[in-house]
C-alpha cells in the first residue's frame, strides 16, 4: 500500500477544497492588504486548477486485499 495521497499535488482533496474556501472567504472579507490578496488569489487559482484536474482525470483505482473478484454474473451469492 502506498502512502501517497491521490491528489496530484500531494494535497488531500478535502484539505485542498477547505483551503480554497478559506481563501475565498478571506478575499471576500476584504480586510487583507492588496499584496496579500494577490498572493491568496494566486494560491486559490492554483488549488482550483489542481482540484479540477483531480476530479476530471480521476480513474478509479481498485486494490483487492482479500479474495478474488469474480465477474458479475458468476454467482448469485451475496446478490441484492
Amino acid at each position, binding site marked *: 500500500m502506498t*502512502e501517497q495521497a491521490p491528489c496530484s499535488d500531494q494535497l488531500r*482533496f478535502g484539505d485542498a477544497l477547505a483551503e480554497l474556501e478559506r481563501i475565498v472567504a478571506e*478575499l471576500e472579507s476584504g480586510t487583507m492588504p492588496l499584496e496579500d490578496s*494577490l498572493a491568496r488569489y494566486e494560491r486559490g487559482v492554483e488549488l482550483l486548477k489542481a482540484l479540477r484536474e483531480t476530479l476530471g482525470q*480521476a*480513474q478509479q483505482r481498485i486494490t*483487492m486485499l482479500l479474495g478474488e473478484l469474480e465477474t458479475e454474473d458468476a454467482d448469485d451469492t*451475496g*446478490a*441484492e
Partner: protein
Amino acid sequence: MPEMRALSVSEALGLARKALEGVRLVVVGEVSEVSDKPSYKAVYFSLADEGAVMPCLMWRDAYSESGVSLRCGSLVEAEGVFTVYAAKGRMQFQVRRLALAGEGVLRMQVAALARRLQAEGLTSSDRKRRLPAFPTRIGLVTSPRGKAVHDVIRTLGRRYPVAELLIAGVLVEGDGAAEAIVKGLRVVTEAGADVVILGRGGGSYEDLMPFNSEAVARAVASCPIPVVTGIGHEPDTTIADMVSDLTASTPTAAAEAATPASADLMRRLEHISTRLARGLAYRVQALEHRVALLSGRPLFCDARRILGAWEQTLDGLSGSLERALPRRLDVASDRLRSADERLVSVGGRLVSAAGASVALLEARLGDLSPLGILRRGYSVCYAEDGETVIRSAGQVSLAEIVRVRLADGALGCRVETKEEEAAR
C-alpha cells in the same frame, strides 16, 4: 349394503377437495425439488422428512411476500391447506405463509444480543462518527462474488473516482463468515482506508446471521474508522447496522452515503471559481474606491487643510508674543535709559582720554609713512621716467638724467660719476 349413487370422477375429486381444504395445517419439512420459474404463476416444491414427501405449491405473490428464498435442504415452516389438482388427480399442499424454520429461535438470540450491546452503550447515537466528507481510501468488505460488489464499484467509480477502493472480498454467509468479515474490517483499516463499507445483498434471515454475530458487532463498534453498513434489503436490520456509524439499506446506498458526487463537486468548484475572481475584483475595486475618496478629500485640493492648523497655531503664538513683547520691551527700555544716562556721564572722560591716545598713535603712524622718512632727510632716486626706483649704481649710466624725490619736492639731476660697491 345400501346402494351408492355412482359419482363422476370430477364429483369424487370435488368431494375430496372440499374435505381437505377445510383443515388448515402448519407443516415443518426439508425443501427438495424446487421449481421456481418466473413464467409460472406459482412456485412448486416438495417438503420431506425421513419417511414421506408432499408436493407443495405457493402462489407467486404470496411467495414474494414471504421474503423466503427456497433452497433445497433448508428447513421451512409452511402454513396452508391440502388441496386436489383435479386435472392430474393429485393431492398437493397449497402454502399460504412460509418461513424458515428455527428462525424464531435465531431471532430470540439476536434480540438478546442486541439488548446486551445496547446496555453496553454500543448502539448509542453518541458513538456514531461522522464520515469523512472527502474520503481518500474507501474500504469495502463484502463478498467478491455476485452483484453487490459490482454495484458498489460502479457507484463509487461514477460518484467519486478520486478515492482509491480497497476491497476485502470475504465470505459473507455460512460457517466462518463472521470471522472472515472481522478479518476484512481489520485488513482494510490496516491498509489505510478512512471509511469502510460493510455490505451484502439481501438474503434470508439465516443468511444474514454473520451480521448478527457478536464478533462482527464488536469489530464494527471498535473499528478505528467509520463504518457504513449496507446489508440486505429493508426491513432487515442486523446488529452490525445497529452498531455501525451509518446504516444504508443496500450496498449501493452505502456507497452513495460514503462519497460526495463528482458532479456536485464540479459545480461547487465553478461557484468557488466565480467567487474567487469576484473576491479579488471587489478587493481591487474597494481599494480604488478608497483612493478615489482620498484623492477627493479637501486635503488634496486645498493645501491650507494641511497648513491651516499650523497657521492658526502660529497666529496664536504671534498674538501671545505681541502681548508678551511690550512688557519685555518696557523693561528693556528702562534698562536702556539708565545705561544711556550712565554712558553720558562717563562718556566725556572717556572721549578726552581717547583723543590723547589717538594723537599719539597718529604720530607713530606718520613715522612709518614714506613721507615721514623723507622728512627725516632721506630721498628717493627714480629713473628719468619718474617711476622706476634706482636701487643699484649699475642701473644708470654716466650722463643719464635721474629724478630725486625729497620731502617737499623733486630735483632733476645728471649722473656725473659712479662709484660701485661690491654687492652684499
